[in-house]
């Protein structure tokens, strides 16, 4: 088991290193896309804490991205704050404001489960969108806010490669900390809640509190993604906070494989590249993306991360689809 686990970690590290080494030598558009994918990877991983580990399907994750992004934009344009080393302060503030929003929203959302949780998070997410759209004096309404050039403090973030390194760093740290989180006793209790909340409660866990804390943590990481997104894109608009962004995040997790962390990041990469490349090639790209989602859900309920296990399963004639999960891990 530990051997298998170490191998998985090694593979992830190797893949990350590959991205780190190869990206700077790609075309400048690819660098931008990889940066976008990493940022959405953070968002998807934050959602995975809720969806994959705690079993809470949230449709409002864009709200936290929006809080982080709008905070960055408002501070930069109104107070010229965060244009030098204070960028780091903005990162912290972005995480805090998103976490605080999640703490507030959580009071309403956590009491519900399943579809009801979905609907409440959707509604709360739309509230943030409504604010972004209608609070003209602060958010610029429909026009959104255009940010000044990226911060400089010895390091020039305006340079796309430098900014890629920065985002990569944040991504790696997010992945590592979230991994530690889900491996911790707290993370295990979240999985316990996902599997059988009633039993956890009977065992004496305060499941409400556990879910509430998970919700806040997910919000915080969403805020981090928001700060990075605002600086990457140079524009914050209500379109970023709209339901479609939340749905995208959800689909990234489902596509990659919920409950795997890395899956969300892979899903983010695939969605970003598919969307940006396909949409320049064919006008009916949305059908392709839709088709990919449908096929994944129908044939790969475990997402792409479930693929190796599935292949391994089909190689063994004795294995029946339903039993794949209970197979002992085989090391080749």
């Amino acid at each position, binding site marked *: 088991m530990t051997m298998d686990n170490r191998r998985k970690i090694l593979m992830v590290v190797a893949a990350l290193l*590959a991205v780190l080494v190869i990206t700077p030598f790609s075309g400048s*558009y690819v660098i931008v896309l990889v940066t976008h994918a990493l940022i959405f990877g953070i968002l998807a991983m934050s959602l995975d804490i809720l969806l994959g580990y705690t079993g809470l399907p949230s449709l409002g994750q864009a709200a936290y991205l929006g809080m982080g992004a709008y905070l960055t934009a408002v501070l930069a344009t109104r107070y010229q704050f965060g244009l030098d080393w204070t960028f780091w302060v903005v990162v912290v503030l972005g995480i805090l404001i998103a976490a605080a929003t999640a703490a507030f929203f959580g009071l309403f959302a956590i009491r519900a489960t399943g579809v009801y949780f979905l609907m409440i998070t959707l509604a709360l997410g739309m509230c943030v969108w409504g604010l972004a759209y209608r609070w003209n004096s602060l958010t610029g309404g429909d*026009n959104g806010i255009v940010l000044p050039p990226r911060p400089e403090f010895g390091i020039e973030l305006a340079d796309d490669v430098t900014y890629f390194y920065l985002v990569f760093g944040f991504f790696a740290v997010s992945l590592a900390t979230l991994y530690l989180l889900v491996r911790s006793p707290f993370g295990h209790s979240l999985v316990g809640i996902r599997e059988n909340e009633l039993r956890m409660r009977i065992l004496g866990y305060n499941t409400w509190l556990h879910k509430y804390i998970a919700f806040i943590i997910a919000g915080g990481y969403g805020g981090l993604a928001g700060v990075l997104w605002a600086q990457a894109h140079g524009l914050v608009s209500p*379109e970023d906070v709209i339901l479609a962004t939340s749905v995208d995040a959800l689909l990234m997790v489902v596509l990659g494989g919920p409950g795997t962390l890395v899956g969300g990041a892979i899903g983010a990469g695939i969605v970003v590249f598919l969307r940006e490349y396909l949409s320049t090639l064919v006008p009916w790209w949305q059908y392709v993306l839709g088709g990919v989602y449908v096929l994944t859900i129908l044939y790969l309920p475990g997402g792409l991360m479930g693929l190796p296990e599935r292949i391994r399963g089909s190689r063994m004639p004795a294995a029946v689809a339903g039993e794949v999960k209970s197979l002992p891990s085989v090391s080749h």
Partner: protein
Amino acid sequence: MLSKIARSLSWGLVAVGLAAGTGMSRESGAAQELRIGFLAPTTGIFAQIGKDMTNGFQMYLDEVKGDFAGAKVKFIVEDEEGKPPVGVRKVEKLIRQDKVHMFIGGLLASTGYALAPVSTRLKTVYVASIPAADDLTQRDSAKFPLLVRTGWTSSQPNHPFGEWACEQGYKRIVAIAADYAFGHEVVGGFQRAFEACGGRIIQKIWPPLGTIDFGPFIPTLKKDADAIFTLMVGPMSLQFPKQLASAGIKKPVLGGGTSYDEFVLPSMGDEVIGHVSALQYSAALETPRNAAFVKKYREKYGKVPSYYSESNYTTAQMIHEVMKKTKGKWPGAEQFVKLLASIQLETARGPVRLDEMKNPVHNVYIRKVERKKLHGYAKDELWNSVVKTYPNVSQFWKFGKAEFLKQPVYSRDFPPCKFCE
């Protein structure tokens, strides 16, 4: 185990390498290629407008067989979905991957505000053929040295329109307009000019963008007003006149140009006959140049050109004119902007030149919707008949540039509604 890692690594390498390869291969184009990126919504609720935009540009390209004075035009259309962030992403793609010399278009005013900074950041020419946000060529103009507007500012046609309303003897007008930047700027321009000649705006109502049920708004319109000024966009344009008519209101209706644009006019009914609007173009313009344009466009695409088509057709014409001066050589971004800004041209909309802030000075037409035969077509159809022409109108109208720029940009609260009751 190691071999497995190596295998997955090599797959990653191949994938990234492929992606990088497609990015690089465009670099080595022939020197005489002019790469033009074009942003229009080709999916979503604005898809039809996007088609009009693309068709306009494409028709000019077809006329000259894709050849601008020796430069082969590579025309790359990207779908901006009517969303500013998508527009920004597509421009990044156009500039970084396709290495375009310039990008054109975008639909909404908000998209214009989002794209202009990208042109500055990535040092690429942006030709705003449709986005009419005032400040792009007014107070923020200095921030966007590589932006040229070939379309219009939202308030531009509505300044003379305000004066025209005074001439008709209207004293008190109520305004009802879509609640976003474009609506605010259209109403603002009209109000300022109308009140400058003694008129009064006595009420302003702002239905949200996308409203299709005007039931809550129409009954609140002041009964003693002389006329109604309206600005509607998209599906709102269709619904408002219908519901106004069925509410039995027979007051004269004035409107911003997009309310009765040819893009939506054929789907309208007799309820809009007599409505008056102001814009720099009308398909009903009876000049030989425009008649030929309308006929050719209609033959090719099966519908009457809208201002969205005309504006992009004219933009192509202007770019061609610049390339004639440089004999097909790309002169560099700054020089291109300079040359484009100095163009004077006869176009389908009439004579066009650009002012020193790179916004067109052109005729503004006051247009009344009429059902009649025109341009030799056999059927009676709705047309925006031109009832008065204000020649060579600049974005500053008669207010003077310096004084005009001192005031804030038109908004929900500016000019203040001092005669509101």
